[in-house]
């Protein structure tokens, strides 16, 4: 279960290392494509101020301009630069995606470890997770956001909570199967206490499946954030996020399709990239892990 690379034959020369990289690329084309797209968007998000103008600047004189060499993606109904807004939108999507993945994995891992180890805690936690799973994620998030003032933090929390049950169940099932194995028993016999047993001996088995799960959660979080913003229950409307852009320009679909399709294509590309990366990691790290269940 632990993710240890099988030792490969020692490379005698640089030529064979190149060959090995070449083989890796040939065997995982889609995974690397996903990684490349994701890195591209990461770089764009980081250097946004260098490549794009002010995403909030409204210029009523240049409303609904089609894309031109000067304005790469045209302008929207408020005269805002669609290119700048799309570039800055990458920041919102990636921050939400990574934060939700990190938070739900860390919290879910902790709960799952204890649930798998302590019977009584397990019974309570799993019933709570069943209840949480029965509430459609988008509706739960809508309720949480509409009850509190909308901000990126609330949106991240509202998306993370519905993702928890999946992580907890995954971790718990691994703990249940691992804790009976001889090496755990040996560690216990050697006098390892429960926290050490859980975090030092059992937790490593959960890492490979959790990395895969984290990519899927990241992809779904980006989708849910965009959906929430689109419905008016996401990040505040003035923030340039892809969902907000599509929502605010939706009446101009026929007249100015670029206002919708530029953020839409960016959104689909990022989610696709994360999903491709996740599928590739799953095939490499844990072929038995079933998807999204």
């Amino acid at each position, binding site marked *: 279960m632990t993710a240890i690379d099988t030792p490969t034959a020692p490379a005698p020369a640089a030529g064979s290392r190149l060959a090995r990289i070449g083989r890796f690329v040939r065997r995982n084309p889609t995974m690397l494509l996903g990684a490349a797209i994701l890195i591209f968007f990461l770089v764009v998000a980081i250097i946004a101020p260098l490549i794009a103008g002010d995403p909030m600047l409204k210029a009523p004189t240049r409303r609904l301009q089609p894309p031109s060499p000067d304005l790469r993606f045209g302008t929207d109904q408020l005269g805002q630069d669609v290119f700048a807004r799309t570039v800055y939108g990458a920041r919102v999507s990636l921050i939400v995606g990574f934060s939700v993945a990190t938070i739900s994995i860390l919290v879910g891992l902790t709960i799952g470890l204890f649930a798998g180890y302590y019977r009584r805690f397990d019974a309570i936690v799993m*019933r*709570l997770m*069943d*209840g*949480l*799973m*029965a*509430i*459609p*994620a*988008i*509706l*739960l998030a*809508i*309720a*949480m956001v*509409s*009850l*509190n*003032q909308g901000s990126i933090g609330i949106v991240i929390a509202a998306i993370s909570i519905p993702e928890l049950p999946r992580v907890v169940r995954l971790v718990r099932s691994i703990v249940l199967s691992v804790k009976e194995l001889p090496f755990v028993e040996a560690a216990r016999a050697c006098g390892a206490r429960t926290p050490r047993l859980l975090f030092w001996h059992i937790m490593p088995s959960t890492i490979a499946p959790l990395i895969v799960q984290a990519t899927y959660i990241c*992809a779904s979080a980006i*989708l849910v954030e*965009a*959906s929430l913003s*689109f*419905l*008016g*229950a996401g990040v505040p409307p003035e923030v340039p996020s892809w969902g907000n852009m*599509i929502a605010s320009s*939706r009446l101009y*679909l*026929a007249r100015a*399709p670029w206002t*919708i*399709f530029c953020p*839409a294509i960016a*959104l*689909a590309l990022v*989610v*696709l990239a994360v*999903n*491709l990366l996740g*599928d590739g990691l799953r095939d490499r790290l844990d072929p038995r892990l*079933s*998807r*999204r*269940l």
Partner: protein
Amino acid sequence: MLSYLVQRLASTILVMTLVGIFVFLLLHLSAGDPAAIIAGDYATPQQIVAIRQRLGLDDPLLVQFGRWALRVIQGDLGVSIFSSTPVSTLILQRLEPTLSLAILTMIFAVSIAVTLGVLAAWKAGRPVDRLLMGFSVLGFSMPTFVVGYCLIYVFAIELRWLPVQGYRPILDGIGPWFMHLVLPTVTLGLAYVALIARMTRASMQEVLEEDYIRTANAKGVSARTMLMKHALKNAGVPIITVIGIGVALLIGGVVITETVFNIPGVGRLVVDAISKRDYPIIQGVILVFSGVYVLINLAVDLSYSLIDPRIRH
């Protein structure tokens, strides 16, 4: 079987109770004052005090929950702040479009997805399979509203084959009703198709390696009979399970699809409630949708022994 049934029903009731507790606590533990939230943004302080007294918000939380739960069990989901209409009435008024969309999508998605999944498993590793699985990753990655706008742009605005938006009641004629639902159904169904097709392929691939499939092939059964009769029946349980779990996906999608296509259904009810901060509506719809989801999955669990006689409880 009977004891299993009782056990499953008990756990369903437990899950619904938990959903109720979550939804109840969401309002009472949120940052603001529940009375102020229920009163809406334009209420005067006197109105807020009146609401607090009327709803008994000064009572202990447990007493409040008991009172609220009793009303919900009787079908009273509270009253909308904005229209002063009972939430249950509002939901019933908007049930027809949502049910039409959901049922059409189910039929469309399951029939397409199972066919594609069986085909992909049969031709595993071949170009057809790779194409279909590539399509399914794409189906997961395309946001529902993006799919919707792409379809509207191509089929309604450019080609003018189908209406852009709106809904016609089924009583106005089945033709217009259906034409208005074609694009929403495809939009909503895409992610669901991807999910079910993937599971069908995985489950079928496992079954296709069984000895009895080799036997069936050896005795000269046609490919169609082999796939549909021998393999699909035995691959059924995981497929039905994922259809049930996927209903959650469908419910989230309904909210978005109804907004994109301007369909006056239960999903739009929620979205309209967001901007008006009409919390009783959001709460009521969450309870109803969660209940539907739990009941569908109960039905799925109970159907296992019908599909696969090897499963006995």
